[in-house]
């Protein structure tokens, strides 16, 4: 049996499936981030504001990701919490050029962290300080300070500056997330 399992793992047949939740305010670039993880032929050319949510699938290092790309519009943010229970990781996308709404980002993050389905779990949170190419974009360090990320003690988190249009910074972030989720899964089994 052990040999068979090893063989399966080696061939990559029994890939583990994980769910990640992609959240963030509207116009922060969640759909664009998810889009750049997809294979060339699946990529969308024009991206419109998401209504409700989209489910996208992509792979990274033998993990099959199911991404719940949530709408960030104010009236759909209530939907986020319904997916907290099943998710193995969270990708939080931030528009680093939108200084005005940084307080709103913090508010939404706090609501997320206080949610009973999140606060007891030690799920990894990956922050993308997106739109780093914009000229008035804040650095990822400044964003981490503004959001008070240093106060998150019980969950692994990582912030990386990104540009979802070119794909810069995304791979680094997602590799961190993959590793974290893999560690979590190994602990459980």
């Amino acid at each position, binding site marked *: 049996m052990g040999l068979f399992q090893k063989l399966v793992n080696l061939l990559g047949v029994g890939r583990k499936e994980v769910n990640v939740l992609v959240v963030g*305010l*509207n*116009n922060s670039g969640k759909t664009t981030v998810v889009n750049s993880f997809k294979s060339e032929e699946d990529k969308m050319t024009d991206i419109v504001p998401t209504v409700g949510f989209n489910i996208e699938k992509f792979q990274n290092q033998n993990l099959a990701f199911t991404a719940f790309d949530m709408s960030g519009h*104010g*009236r759909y*943010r209530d939907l986020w919490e319904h997916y907290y229970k099943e998710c193995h990781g969270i990708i939080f996308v931030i*528009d680093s050029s*939108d*200084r*005005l*709404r*940084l*307080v*709103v980002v913090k*508010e*939404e993050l706090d*609501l997320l962290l206080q949610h009973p389905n999140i606060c007891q779990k030690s799920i990894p949170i990956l922050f993308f300080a997106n739109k780093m190419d914009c000229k*008035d974009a804040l650095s990822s360090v400044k964003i981490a300070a503004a959001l008070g990320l240093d106060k998150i003690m019980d969950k692994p988190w990582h912030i990386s500056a990104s540009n979802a249009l070119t794909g810069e910074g995304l791979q680094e972030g997602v590799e961190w997330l993959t590793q974290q989720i893999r560690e979590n899964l190994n602990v459980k089994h």
Partner: protein
Amino acid sequence: MDRYFFLFLKMNVSKWLEAHTDRSANLITLPRNAILADISGTGDYNLVITDLKFKTDNKSRLKTFRGTILISDQALPSLPNSLISFFADRLEPRIPVVGVACGSEVFFYKNLKPFYQFRVPSCPLIDHESNIWKEIIETKQFDVDKMVESLKEIPYSNLSSRSQQLLTEYSLTKAEAFIRKYMDSIPVKDDTITCMITLERTSKDKTSISCPIIATEFSNIYILDPQNFSIIQQANTCNTAATPFLIRCSGLYDVEFRILIATREGHICLLRKGWLEGKSLIQLKSDIVDMVLVPGDNFIVVASVDKIIQCFTKRGQRLWSSEVNSPITTMCLVRLEHLSTSLVAIGLKNGSIQFYQGRQAVDYLSIADSPSVIVFGQLGQEENVLVVITAGGSISFKILKRTAEFSNVPQESTPLIQSKPLPLPKRSKLFLEQSIRERQHALEIHQTFQQDLIRLRLTAARALIQNLTDQSGIGNEKEQIKLSAQVLGLGPKFTIVLTLENINPTKPLVGLKVTFHVNPLYYILSNYVIKIPLIPPSLSFKMQIKAKEIMEESGNEEQSNSNAIRVFVSRQEFSIPVLAATINMPPTELIA
């Protein structure tokens, strides 16, 4: 304890997020001079304000912010008084026109570039004034003194600005030079714009084409065509003298609309489609500060200088009024579409903003100093942003939390909905029989009831009379003292026995005295003041005094009026009696 702490937290947590505050922005902006508009057509809303500079060498500016960052700053030709934005066409991308009223002109900007200038038609000159100037133009000769004298005959406010300026020149040489400078043309009397608003043309959506409406100093109202800026309707504010300074509207230009104009005289005038003259709808006793129309009900909320907010229906009936604790500086409508409600934000001079939902204050914000303009709407990508510019020049951006709710706390006026049905008993046979009997003998039952009622009243009245005539039973409920008197004897010598009873079951009575008041012409008492010793609870004290009637044959008739002894029970330190009673003395039976 935990629960109290939670309550405490809940009460103090603000519904607003502090997005950004700049205390050194140094902006001087007046109400109706700040708008939120998507001026670039990208869906990223901008804040457009006018920054007033009152010094002549420093021009006022039109400033545009993207988010919290100033992106454009351009000089305005003169002092601006109001700012509007509206969609003029259906070209893609949809870019609105920004209109700034300065003096008698409106400057229209698109994409932050000026593209049209509209001038309000000038008013005709008074014949007398135009004759004076015509004469000068024709003859090229003038006498300054004579001219000034004849101009002074006309009321100052009816003159053209050129004549007004001439009258303010003191020195003769300067006045002469002034006339020489302008003696080739007839002056024009400019009409100054006082306020502006926009009115949607055919539909109510966010990007529908709207018509600008302009109100002027000489109480003219102009509705402009948004495409070619020609006047499509012109009207007078009111049939009486009225200077509009604030204008609000509801409805659609093509269907039916209502324009409400607040005037400096304290009137609110109504103008509807097709009217050539507005009608005064409401008249206020004090000056109006600001006015908003609450969508939906079309209620008019008016703030006046005497710190009062009043709400009127669209027909002008007053619904409610409320007083605030500080003078009102500005008001702003806060439309919360996601909660399908509207609040009215009221800026107070003491540096606070109160939010009213209907007549109730539902929220409160505290800011650095008195707000001079408040504007609420979409800014950037965020839909519910409150921008406050204060008199001290600071600007602050506040974002309404997504989770904020303005639930109506139960009001006294609205009765609670009866959730439980009344506990009615089952319909028994007995009940049915009874009701049949009541139906058959209704008249008799009614009569019997009425008879019994009358009897009851009679018994009550009798008991009252008896109580009044019978001297015993005078008491003071509050002090719990009861006094009764008894008169013994046939006269002319009587003995009066007074009983003072302490009804209080727990407290003793201390420090009382009884004073007798009597007409000394008729009675002589053995004692006029009696000090009462301590009366223990639920016990009584009896005292006796002797009264002697002075017998005079002649005074018998008068005596009947004053054959009374008045008794006062009082505490020793106080002059107000605890209890007062009158003892009617019986007449002396003269034995022949």
